[in-house]
């Protein structure tokens, strides 16, 4: 390190940022690997149906395919919001 280094803007350690970003995206993509191609579409449609009744976050629907021996299990998990956040069906009165 040079004695005049303090005059220069010290860039932050970008290699560790790169590694962290990669670790996350690679893990995510490995999880999706081998899963059927229709999963994203299935997820979107299910979300739309749920949204008709409950106001859920787009990230609240999780779809996973897990291999168990020679059969696959489609796991669907929806995190519902707390009581009081439900969408009131249109014809009902305000309360």
């Amino acid at each position, binding site marked *: *390190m*040079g*004695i*005049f*280094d303090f005059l*220069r803007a010290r*860039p932050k*350690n*970008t*290699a*560790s940022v*790169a*590694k962290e*970003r*990669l*670790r996350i*995206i*690679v893990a995510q*993509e*490995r999880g999706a*690997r*081998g899963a059927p191609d229709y999963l994203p579409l299935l997820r979107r449609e299910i979300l739309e149906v749920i949204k008709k009744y409950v106001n859920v976050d787009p990230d609240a629907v999780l779809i996973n395919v897990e291999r168990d021996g020679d059969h696959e299990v489609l796991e669907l998990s929806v995190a519902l919001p707390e009581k009081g956040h439900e969408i009131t069906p249109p014809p009902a009165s305000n309360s």
Partner: protein
Amino acid sequence: MTEIIVVTSGKGGVGKTTSSASIAVGLAKHGKKVAVIDFDVGLRNLDLIMGCERRVVYDFVNVIHGECTLKQALIKDKRYETLFVLAASQTRDKDALTKEGVERVLEEFKTEAFDFVVCDSPAGIEKGAFLAMYFADRAIVVVNPEVSSVRDSDRILGLLSSKTRRAELGEGKVQEHLLLTRYNPARVQNGDMMSLADVQEILGINVLGVIPESEGVLAASNSGVPVILDEGSNAGLAYEDAVARLLGQERPMRFMDAPKKGLMSRLFGG
């Protein structure tokens, strides 16, 4: 037994052709009978890196279509007589390569008692890349210490474990090797380039070699002499080590540390 090695990466411009050329030459230097095939149909380049571009008469697609024999299409290297190049076709027909055609040509290399067939894959995950890896026994995944290259390599590793003949027939895994190229130890030390350990931790495959970024690589491609033949360049020596490891020899990693700085550069940075 003929071993089929694919040199692949997903991302373009990381050094697949440079690596294919040097590895093929390196294997021939060890006395092995080697063919190196350019799978990049439409964008032939291996011939330039090998320095035989003016001797291409027939190409890979000609052989597949039966327009010439394999012997006629193989270009014998002027430096090593057990080394042969099979050029890619410059056709724009995407379907010029077929699985059956590639298989037939590879079988012929087996009957001709080649020790190694090195398949230089095109970038991407299209047909050419798929066929280059499909029949492989081993894969050398060329990676730069950079985010997009590492991510694409991980995709390629996924394909190697599912879309290859070995995977489909359950004949065991394609053996995967990491070849980290354009490595700059000084930048790694400064923390602005991922280290070998970082890349290895993410990809989780064993390391065949680390090729330092070197001026020798461009000089080599300029002159059509694979960089492994330039004994004055660190990249050439690093390829020699990688080839030795491929043949099962133990070699310590070299060129992993930044060159020591002189007093002036220590004072003034640089």
